[in-house]
């Protein structure tokens, strides 16, 4: 590696990092938050006894898990305008990511709701709770603890998947890397550099996941 390349790598770090903190991370957080709400609705819908809810939830999950994320983004950003529905790049990205994350997280949440013993629901019923209240106060808090590891997986995947938004003109971190790399023809080093920054983000999140799990497990004694 010559001095000029090294110089480029050093100079690129800060702009890339800033782009990551100001775009990649917020994009991830916003999409995950919306995705979790969708996931919860889909999970409860799939567990519901109402056929329409079951079908809607299963259909949603099947479609968004069964098609590529990049294609979903392209349909929303490039496809919709041609049928008269124009959505800007960033809302398109958030929409695509959250729909996708929601479909994956729904299955994790559904499984963890099912993992809460039925005795808990019965106990809730005997102290007068209806199903929504029992879900909120008794089942979901316990399901959350069970769901954290699989949801963390989804979350960390999402951090990396936001790089796909570069394909629909969102100026997130990977797009910035492309812009820096192209004129200098430094694809190898700049892409390795941006990969390492993704790795850094994910490592921090994994650390946070551990802390969260310990917090949620505080009421379990061995």
């Amino acid at each position: 590696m010559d001095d000029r390349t090294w110089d480029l790598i050093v100079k690129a770090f800060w702009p890339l990092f800033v782009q990551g903190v100001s775009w990649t991370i917020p994009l991830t957080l916003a999409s995950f938050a919306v995705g979790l709400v969708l996931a919860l609705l889909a999970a409860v819908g799939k567990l519901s006894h109402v056929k329409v809810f079951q079908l809607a939830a299963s259909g949603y999950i099947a479609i968004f898990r069964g098609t590529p994320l990049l294609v979903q983004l392209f349909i929303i950003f490039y496809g919709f305008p041609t049928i008269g529905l124009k959505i800007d790049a960033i809302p398109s990205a958030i929409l695509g990511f959250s729909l996708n994350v929601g479909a994956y997280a729904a299955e994790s949440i559904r499984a963890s709701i099912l993992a809460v013993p039925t005795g808990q629901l019965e106990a809730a019923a005997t102290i007068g709770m209806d199903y929504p209240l029992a879900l909120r106060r008794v089942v979901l808090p316990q399901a959350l603890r069970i769901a954290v590891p699989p949801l963390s997986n989804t979350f960390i995947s999402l951090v990396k998947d936001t790089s796909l938004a570069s394909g629909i003109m969102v100026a997130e971190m990977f797009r910035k890397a492309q812009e820096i790399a192209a004129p200098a023809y430094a694809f190898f080093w700049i892409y390795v550099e941006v990969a390492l920054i993704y790795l850094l983000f994910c490592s921090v999140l994994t650390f946070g996941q551990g802390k969260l799990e310990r917090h949620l497990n505080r009421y379990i004694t061995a």
Partner: protein
Amino acid sequence: MGEILVTVDNLHKSFGQNKVLKGVDLKVAQGSVTVLIGPSGSGKTTLLRSLNSLTRPEAGIVGIGSVTVDFGKNPSKSEIRELRAQSGMVFQAHHLFPHRTVIENIVEGPLYVQKEPQAQARERALKLLEQVGLVDKADDYPSSLSGGQQQRVGIARALAMRPKLMLFDEPTSALDPETVGDVLVVIRDLAKAGWTMVIVTHEIRFAEQVADHVAFLDSGVIVEEGSPKQVLTDPREPRTREFLRRVLDPLAAEGVQGDQRLDVPTWAKFDHLSDPQTPYPRETVISGEGI
């Protein structure tokens, strides 16, 4: 019999082809303790859970106080909820909320269902904990308690809703022998304080002491019922007699005799209820008033 609080009329329940309750009738007087006994699989749990519709019978009527539900007439959710509000239930496996502390378990219903003010609910919860002998555990999580302590928290949680009726499904059969006594003492004190209770138990000696009425269930019907003295010591029905023989002296029932037989362990004799050295504070009497 005094004023009737609970009326069960011709209750039927099947699971698939398996007919579990075949027309059960039962009356429970206000302020009395009814003990349900019977062989495993006879339908005791099913009957108890029908009283609060955790198990939904196909037909029959359950009335508690002024609330009557006719299960044959497809009762609505709100009817079921009203029926449920009449009773508190203590499960064999306690089913405490593991993610909430002891006191949070107790105030959960009062706060979120009955919308009681926080300070008042807490105060009542502490009083209940005092009554079951666990004030010092108020801020612990259930997982750090012994089985007997968990069960007593379960009792306090049910009492906190101020039910008219308390239901117990084998409250001590999952416990270590040394913690059984503490739980039985709490239940006995509830009986003394005039609570109306229906208790499923295999603890025949305990039943003798606390029951006003004993019903023997076999194959989904009440075969025999009456005073504990009559049913437990002088049963009329051969099936009751056979059941009691097996429960009270399992080895004799299997034909084991003489020095092959083990001594009945002390905990099984229920002496701890009358033992002056019992660790449980005997002066605590759970009053139905003020909670």
